[in-house]
Each structure stands twice: as structure tokens, then as C-alpha cells.
């Protein structure tokens, strides 16, 4: 066997150009399959990461009505029968097995009012009334200053935390910490600045995301939830974010939380607003299914080039057998069994296509890297697919080499030796 492989390499090396051209069909086929697979895997991974968040596992449980998320902008937009989320309910959610942490928060997209610092101001921004779980549930990191203290809530202190965008927008090159801003006639002291993780990128899935991303570009302003009714003058039901322990549990955790939240709602009408958990995993699955179907179709097309490659291998192996008639005759004359001759040519075909497969995998990765470089479509290397591709190449060699190898094995040594 080892001897056969050594012979095969010798044979391939003695016809470098021909061997390469023969391999080319296999290389092209495998390379296109590998680039399709890694590009689609990369897209799927990125999709999952963007929608689900890598390792963050947070799922929003929002007040919704008729399948649409409710946004509260004034007292009249508060749905009937929905109470403010109580501490007991939050505790129940946090006690769920698959929930790591949970936060209830108010959010307002402010367009009709401004945030002032001295003579400077910003309009169109997001105000958040948050509890003490918000920042670590969402994954914000404190850049400077402090987060909210228990006493901020109990004493209704007018303190504020900014994200970095807001800090830059409103304060330019002044250190915001300790400065006072004014909103709705109320002064707030800046106590801290937070930011998302460094690798955070805004994910825009729909028009809401677009607006909220636009808002974020003017910055986020956080105040203790306790201050919310003071500036907006009424109690307002919150939305909830739960963080699941593992990605797979996200949907379940969200649904359980929604169930607990809905148990506190007094139902009045059919159009009753209820809490609905986002089914991010479901969305990912749907998207991935779509990509999977595309992948299947593309692989069939690439498979055709593999078929053409296989025919090329068969053709060149037939040529090789004819060329080496006297070698085969000699080997049979000195006592080589049919199986030995068969093995030699099968090995040669398999080595040829396996080499083609290996080169194809490498070229495939190079291609998907280039695609990534120039079009931004992410690529991810799939180890099982690479191994499978090399194995399939080997199989192609064995199949397409079989006929020529059998021709060689069945050669009449007398006839074969007579030829020069």
C-alpha cells in the first residue's frame, strides 16, 4: 500500500502538467463547494451572533398588541389593565431556572424636548428609566464614574448616566462627570459613563432598529427608574429584558417571563396588550433554513464540476494505463497478481484526486477569504466539511479509477510485453 502511494506520487511527479490539469476539475469542484459552505456557514454564524448576541443571550419581553410592539409616548398611550411591573414579579422571573438576570425599564424616544447643558443641547435621543439590574443584564460596561446606587432609588436622587455617544454630543471636550444637565425643568447630575462592549455593532433588522440606531447616534441617557414618574408625571408599565443562561434557552426563558408578566394583567378586551417575548432563535432558524436551501442548490451545481473532473480523471487514467502497457506486462510476468495491478492504478487515481481535494479545500478557503475581504460576506471554516471534501475526492478517484485499473489488471501479459 505504502509502496503504491510512493509509486503514485512518482507517477504524478513525472507528468506534472498533465496531473495538474487532471486535478483541476476536482480542484474547481471542491473549491467551489468549500467556498459556498464556508461563506454560508459564516453568514449563518454572523446572523446568529447578530440576532442572538454572542454569549449575551438577552431576550426582550415587550408589551405588544396585535403582534406589534407598543411604544408609550404619553399618558393616553399607556395600555389599560397593565400595571407597573412589581418587585415580586421581577423576583419570580429572576427565580426561573434558565434566567441569569432580568431587568425592567422604561424607555422613551424623546423628540419634542431637549437635554440642556448650559447653552448646548441635544434633541432626539433615548431616555431610559432603569433598575439596578439593567447595565449588567444588557452588557454595558462602566467607563468612568459610578452606576446607580440603592440610595439613588430610595431617595429619588436626580442622577444620570450617559453612554459615550451622548457624552461626546453634549459635552464635547469637557469631562461630564459631576456636571448638571437639565431635562423637562429638572436638573440631573452626571455620575457615570457607560459603553457597550468594544466589538458591539448596531444590528439593523427593521425600521424600528433603524430609528433606535439613529437615536443612539445622538446618545442614550439613563436615569433611575424611580425618577421616571417625576419627569413624566405618570406611572408607566415597563418592558423587560431577561438574560438566559444558554443561547438555546433564550426563547423558553423569554416565554416564561412573558407568562409571569401577563399573569398580572387584568384582561379587558380582545385587543388587550400583553407581554410577548421575541423569538430570536426562531428567526435565526428561519433565516438559516433559507440559507441552507440555497447551499444545497449551489452544492448540486458545484457537484456537476466534480462529475466533469471525475470523467477527466478516468480519461487520463485510461491514457496512463495504455502508456504503461509494457510496465503492466512486465509486472504481471514477474508474478504480480491482478489485485496488485488493480491496487496500483486505483491508488494512483485516488492519490491524484485526494491531492486535488486538498488543494481544492485550500483554494476554497482562500476564495471565501477573498469574498469576505471584498464583499464583507463573512466566512467560517467548517472542519467536518473539509474532511468530508477530501474524503469525497478520494472516493471520486477510486470510482473513476476503477475502470482503467481493471483494464490494466486484465491485460494479457504476452500482448502487453510485445508492445514497446
Amino acid at each position, binding site marked *: 500500500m505504502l509502496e503504491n502511494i510512493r509509486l503514485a506520487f512518482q507517477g504524478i511527479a513525472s507528468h506534472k502538467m498533465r496531473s495538474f490539469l487532471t486535478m483541476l476539475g476536482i480542484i474547481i469542484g471542491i473549491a467551489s463547494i468549500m467556498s459556498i459552505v464556508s461563506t454560508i456557514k459564516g453568514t449563518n454564524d454572523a446572523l446568529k451572533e447578530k440576532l442572538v448576541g454572542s454569549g449575551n443571550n438577552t431576550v426582550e419581553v415587550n408589551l405588544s398588541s396585535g403582534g406589534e410592539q407598543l411604544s408609550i409616548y404619553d399618558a393616553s398611550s399607556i395600555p389599560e389593565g397593565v400595571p407597573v411591573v412589581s418587585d415580586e414579579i421581577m423576583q419570580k422571573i429572576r427565580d426561573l431556572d434558565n434566567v441569569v438576570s432580568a431587568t425592567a425599564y422604561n424607555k422613551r424616544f424623546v423628540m419634542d424636548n431637549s437635554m440642556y447643558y448650559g447653552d448646548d443641547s441635544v434633541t432626539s435621543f433615548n431616555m431610559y428609566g432603569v433598575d439596578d439590574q439593567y447595565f449588567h443584564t444588557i452588557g454595558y460596561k462602566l467607563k468612568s464614574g459610578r452606576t446607580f446606587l440603592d440610595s439613588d432609588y430610595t431617595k429619588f436622587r436626580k442622577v444620570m448616566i450617559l453612554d459615550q455617544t451622548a457624552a461626546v454630543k453634549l459635552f464635547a471636550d469637557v469631562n461630564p462627570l459631576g456636571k448638571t444637565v437639565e431635562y423637562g425643568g429638572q436638573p440631573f447630575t452626571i455620575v457615570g459613563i457607560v459603553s457597550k462592549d468594544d466589538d458591539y455593532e448596531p444590528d439593523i433588522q427593521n425600521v424600528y432598529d433603524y430609528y433606535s440606531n439613529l437615536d443612539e447616534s445622538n446618545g442614550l441617557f439613563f436615569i433611575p427608574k424611580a425618577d421616571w414618574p417625576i419627569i413624566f408625571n405618570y406611572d408607566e408599565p415597563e418592558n423587560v429584558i431577561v438574560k438566559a443562561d444558554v443561547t438555546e434557552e433564550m426563547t423558553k426563558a423569554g416565554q416564561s417571563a412573558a407568562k409571569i408578566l401577563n399573569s398580572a394583567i387584568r384582561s379587558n378586551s380582545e385587543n388587550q396588550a400583553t407581554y410577548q417575548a421575541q423569538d430570536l432563535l426562531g428567526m435565526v432558524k428561519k433565516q438559516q433554513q433559507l440559507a441552507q436551501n440555497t447551499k444545497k442548490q449551489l452544492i448540486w451545481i458545484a457537484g456537476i464540476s466534480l462529475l466533469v473532473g471525475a470523467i477527466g480523471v478516468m480519461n487520463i487514467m485510461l491514457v496512463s494505463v495504455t502508456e504503461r502497457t*509494457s*510496465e503492466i506486462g512486465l*509486472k504481471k510476468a514477474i*508474478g*504480480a*497478481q*491482478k489485485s496488485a495491478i488493480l491496487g496500483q492504478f486505483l491508488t494512483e487515481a485516488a492519490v491524484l484526486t485526494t491531492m486535488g481535494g486538498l488543494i481544492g479545500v485550500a483554494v476554497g478557503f482562500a476564495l471565501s477569504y477573498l469574498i469576505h475581504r471584498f464583499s464583507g460576506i463573512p466566512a467560517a471554516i467548517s472542519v467536518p466539511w473539509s474532511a468530508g471534501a477530501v474524503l469525497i475526492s478520494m472516493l471520486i478517484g477510486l470510482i473513476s479509477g476503477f475502470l482503467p485499473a481493471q483494464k490494466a489488471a486484465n491485460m494479457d501479459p504476452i500482448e502487453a510485453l510485445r508492445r514497446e
Partner: protein
Amino acid sequence: MILKLDHINKAYHTGKLDVPVLHDVCLHVEKGEYVAIMGPSGSGKSTLMNIIGCLDRPDSGTYELNGEDVFSRDDRSMANIRLRNLGFVFQNFQLLNRQSALENVALPLVYAKVPKKERRERARAALERVGLGDRVTFLPGQLSGGQKQRVAIARAMVNRPSILLADEPTGALDSHSSLQIMELFQQLNEEGVTVLMITHSPDIAAYAGRVCDIFDGVISERNGTVNAAQEAERKAEQEAEEALAKMRKRSADMLRHGSEEKEEPDES
């Protein structure tokens, strides 16, 4: 008795016509003999060699090699006999050009499933025996004709066969190399190797201890080294053939000159 051929008949079936090649051939060879089978081309000597070499089967007859019947065996087993009991030397050497002398010699041992280390040792020893101990890494292209044939002889000998079969071993060599090869055969024979050689040349056949003539498929034993009567017969036949060729040429010339208006007859 190492080789025992009895009543071998063989005809080639070309279309409806049967062309007889071997007719009731009997040949017995004792261990350690050096036998030459001599005959002109078309005499059936190659067919006989193929049958002795277990590459071909006759229409009828028996063949015992080392006391074992050969023709009752299947192809697998025939290949095994070639591997274990026979060593082949061909007119055109039949070396693998991409492999070194050592690898060429070791080839039968590969099929005999001898471990690699032992293969190399035995192949080297065989090459040393034919006087090419300093050429083991050479490719056939780097060797002279005589050296190539010695590599082929080493290959034939490496698996310690019962019989060394040589088919026109000097056919492609100059007289000097031929001499060396014949000396090597003689040397091997003196060391106890049974040699069976096919040749058309009486000079080469003269090296053998025993010569059999084959003519039109009939084999005849020669008494003594050279049978004068048969040699004369062979010469007479050769002369007759030459005369016939001359006559043909002459008549062709006559035809050409006798009909000058006509186009040249096709001589290709």
C-alpha cells in the same frame, strides 16, 4: 526433474483458420542444466517460452514444474508460480525507467510481500552478484545496454527461482556486452542455477550445455554441442530463402522496366 513438458500442442485461431504453432513438443530439463532452444523467427519458440513461463496455456499437453502440475491451476496460482519459481530475462530488458536499479531488482520481492528492509538487502546482494554493486542508485537511462540486462538478470534472480528463463537475452546488445552476459549466465549456471534460453543465434546457443532446435513447431534434441547436419540444413534453407528473395526482387524490377508507361508499382 525440474521441468517436464509432454505432448504440448498449440494452434492460434485466427478467424476460421487454425495455424499450428507447436506440435507434440516434449522437453525435459534436469536441475542445474543450461538449455538453449534455438530456432528462426516464426518457429514457435516464443510461444513455447510463454508456455514454459506460465504466461500461456497450450491446447493440450502436460507441464510439471518441480513435480507439480501447472495447467490445472488458476490464474492467481499461475502468477504465484511465476513469482516464486521463474525468473524472466527479456530481450529489451523491460526495466521501469523511473525506478533505480535497486528498485527494479526489488520489484518481485514487493509482490512476494517481503519486508522493505529485507527487500533492499536482497536486491543489493543480487546487484552485487551481477557486478553492479556500485550502480544501485542509477536509473536505467544512466546504464549501458549490458548493464541494463545485468539489472534485469539480478531482478530475475532476486526471488531465487527454480529456473531462469531468458528470451533472446543478447538480442539488443553489442557483441562485447553479449559476451559478458553469456559469461554471467554461465557463471550462474555453474553456481547451480537452471537456465533455459531462447535464441536464434547459434553463437549464443553454443554457450548452453544442451541445445534443442525448434522448427515449424517441432522440437528436436541435438546430440553434442553443434549438430553439423542440422546446421547445414539451416544454412541451405537460409540460402534458399535468400535466393527466393533475389528472384522476387528481380521479377519486380523486370515488371517495372517492362511497363514504363504504367505508373510505378507501389512498393511501400
